[in-house]
């Protein structure tokens, strides 16, 4: 989870490193810790450290983690020879390592030779049948080949064994959303919220899925989850604020013909609208008139 301070620190280090101000190693450590995908920058600055023998020896035993990080970044940027060289160096240093074996299979995957990669993964799994990362790579391979139902099947089998892996639940939820199977995606997000209730972004995604499903109950639950997101982020999440406004207007549209129950919902909507206007005035004042007309049309149509 990337907090605001970590994001500020990351941006500062990134601008510093891009303008040749040093601090490349701290940037790479931060990217590794936050598990971000900044492959082009990692490749450029990682190689600048690795090609400089004095900086390389200054790292000590961390040198090998850097080789691994640069190898994966090179595969992502399609510089496969750089990746092959890094893996060769690692293989020379650690001849019997399963981790290096995984990297070699990853390289086969990046080259596009799916059958060879599949064989490599199966042989690695024979030695170690409960290796989580290899199971996940099989799912990723199925997804990369376009075999989405196969990926779902593998992922479901994986989750039957490793039910606590929230990355896998998130991946499954995103696959279901891409296939428009929203009920199953809602189930996955519910699992995520159960295991990590303090992460507001899961609440937000769940509310989005419920709002897409539609229907009065789903809209009311979606509004509740949008408001809990606003609570957990201190009111700074613009998407949740918009979600509250849209949900309220959708609910009043659905209940228009039914019995006239006076609901308290308009209070939340007006508060959210006020916060949005203040935020826009501060950050994007030229878009403020569009926002006010949009919000007015929402309340008028209800």
């Amino acid at each position, binding site marked *: 989870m*990337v907090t605001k301070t970590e*994001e500020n620190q990351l941006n500062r280090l990134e601008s510093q490193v891009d303008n040749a101000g040093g601090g490349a190693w701290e940037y790479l450590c931060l990217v590794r810790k936050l598990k971000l995908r900044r492959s082009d920058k990692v490749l450029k600055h990682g190689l600048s450290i690795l090609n400089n023998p004095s900086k390389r020896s200054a790292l000590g035993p961390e040198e090998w983690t850097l080789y691994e990080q640069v190898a994966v970044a090179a595969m992502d*940027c399609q510089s496969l020879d*750089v990746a092959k060289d890094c893996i060769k160096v690692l293989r020379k240093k650690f001849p019997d390592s399963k981790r290096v074996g995984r990297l070699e299979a990853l390289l086969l995957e990046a080259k596009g030779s799916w059958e060879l990669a599949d064989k490599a993964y199966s042989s690695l799994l024979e030695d170690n049948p409960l290796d989580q*990362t290899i199971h996940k790579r099989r799912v990723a391979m199925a997804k990369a080949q376009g075999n989405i139902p196969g990926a779902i099947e593998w992922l479901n089998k994986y989750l039957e064994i490793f039910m606590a892996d929230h*990355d896998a639940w998130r991946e499954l939820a995103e696959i279901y959303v891409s296939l428009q199977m929203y009920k199953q995606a809602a189930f996955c997000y519910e699992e995520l919220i159960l295991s990590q209730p303090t*992460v507001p972004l899961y609440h937000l995604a769940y509310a989005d899925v419920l709002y897409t499903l539609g229907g009065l109950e789903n809209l009311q639950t979606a509004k509740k989850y949008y408001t809990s997101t606003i609570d957990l*982020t201190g009111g700074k999440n613009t998407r949740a604020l918009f979600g509250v406004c849209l949900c309220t207007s959708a609910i009043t549209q659905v209940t228009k013909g039914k019995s006239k129950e006076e609901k308290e919902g308009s209070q939340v909507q007006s508060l959210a609208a006020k916060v949005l206007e203040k935020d826009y005035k501060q950050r994007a004042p030229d878009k403020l008139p569009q926002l006010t007309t949009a919000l007015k049309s929402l309340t008028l149509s209800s």
Partner: protein
Amino acid sequence: MALGFAIGVFGVLILFHAAYSTVQYRGLLKITEEEFSGPPFNVVTELSLGLVLCMWAALTVPGKFLSIHPDSEENRIVSLPANLDFMIFNHRGKVFPVEMDLKLKQ
């Protein structure tokens, strides 16, 4: 920082002095065979002064306190980590030209 540390040491010394005077007071009471109901009034004031000084030092010496609210400006979660375990490599970035000077020197 050094002032806070010095005040902390001073507060601890005051507490030790108050303890020593209480022990001496008890010894005196044993000689006169009276009951020990509590330390005398000036020892109590000394104790409270030592308490205040030590607490002040304990709060100022360690440095800046960090926020614990999950929704405060610095602690709020801004984005989730990119799911690197499921990363795939045949994305549209494959068609970008590779920079020729990126090589690993042996």
